[in-house]
């Protein structure tokens, strides 16, 4: 991209995900025990609950959320595949504009409502990808 992009990585992992989930859900702040007493505590507000110290974390949203699913219909309903769900589910709720790439784009009405991970209301753009090269970091197998 011309002009470059600054990437900021907050150090948290799961807390980061909860911040995004809260942001997408309209929850401004919440408390978690992770990080108390470590360098990620910084100047965060600290409160004790049930005899244990917790840090206050803020909900987080973004202008764009970019997610990838296995199936998506033309109204943005998404189904993820196996562990490829991971962070997609909360991320999809937290973008002002959520863009979904899917392996299979299907007609509205053809996905089982019981199996939808991300209801289409959260998704603003959708397209079907192609030429997938699914690289595996460590191929570990067993013998027959």
């Amino acid at each position, binding site marked *: 991209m011309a002009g470059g992009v600054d990437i900021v990585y907050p150090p*948290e992992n*799961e807390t980061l995900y909860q911040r995004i989930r809260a942001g997408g859900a309209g929850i401004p702040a919440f408390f978690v025990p992770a990080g108390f*007493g470590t360098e990620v505590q910084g100047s965060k507000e600290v409160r004790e609950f049930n005899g244990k110290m917790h840090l206050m974390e803020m909900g987080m949203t973004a202008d764009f959320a970019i997610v990838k699913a296995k199936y998506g219909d033309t109204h943005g309903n998404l189904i993820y*595949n196996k562990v490829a769900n*991971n962070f997609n589910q909360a991320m999809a709720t937290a973008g002002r504009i959520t863009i979904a790439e899917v392996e299979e784009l299907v007609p509205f009405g053809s996905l089982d409502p019981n199996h939808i991970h991300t209801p289409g209301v959260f998704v603003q753009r959708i397209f079907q990808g192609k030429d997938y090269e699914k690289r595996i*970091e460590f191929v*570990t197998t*067993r013998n027959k």
Partner: protein
Amino acid sequence: MIDKNGIAKRIAQELRDGYYVNLGIGIPTLVANYIPEGMEVILQSENGLLGIGPFPLAEDVDPDLINTGKQTVTAVPGAAFFDSSASFAMIRGGHIDLTVLGAFEVSEKGDIASWKVPGKLVKGMGGAMDLVAAAKNIIVAMQHTDKEGNSKLLKACTLPLTGVNCVKRIITDLAVVDVTPQGFKLIERAPGVTVEEIKKATAGTLIVEGDIPEMNL
């Protein structure tokens, strides 16, 4: 002393039938190889799988089915897939019976440093901070000393902390050590290892009371 498989074997003795268990990257993953015959243990992978199975056959390798160490795995019959939020609800909500993870350092107060070596290893911490802050039963699996022979069981951690006051039991190539309010307490010796050797290898306060049995491996 014992090797990393020996450590894993000893940790497997802490498993109980019906346990839900989270195994961290490294030595902890080996614990899966020593689950006793006939015991049902369900392994949770924090990237979104409850019911990790063995490595797949070559023809069944699936890029969407990996563990937290990014190795391809299978899912056992009765497994469940879910997002990261559900995964950490299991962990943070106290639903996982046993968590095993590695560490660089553990202090006699139960502090753990396992994620960052400034200048050398500066990736993210993964779910480690959540694991150690809230998991109900944590065992650290590690070598007793580092490659240079320095103790990893310290008075105070020198590396950036993953969590404070959270480790209860450490199993190393030399010993089983518990963390108590008075400091490290020696529980078992690895086969062939003396109390003296363990004292020498432990920089933190080490309480030794009575006869210390050998691990039964």
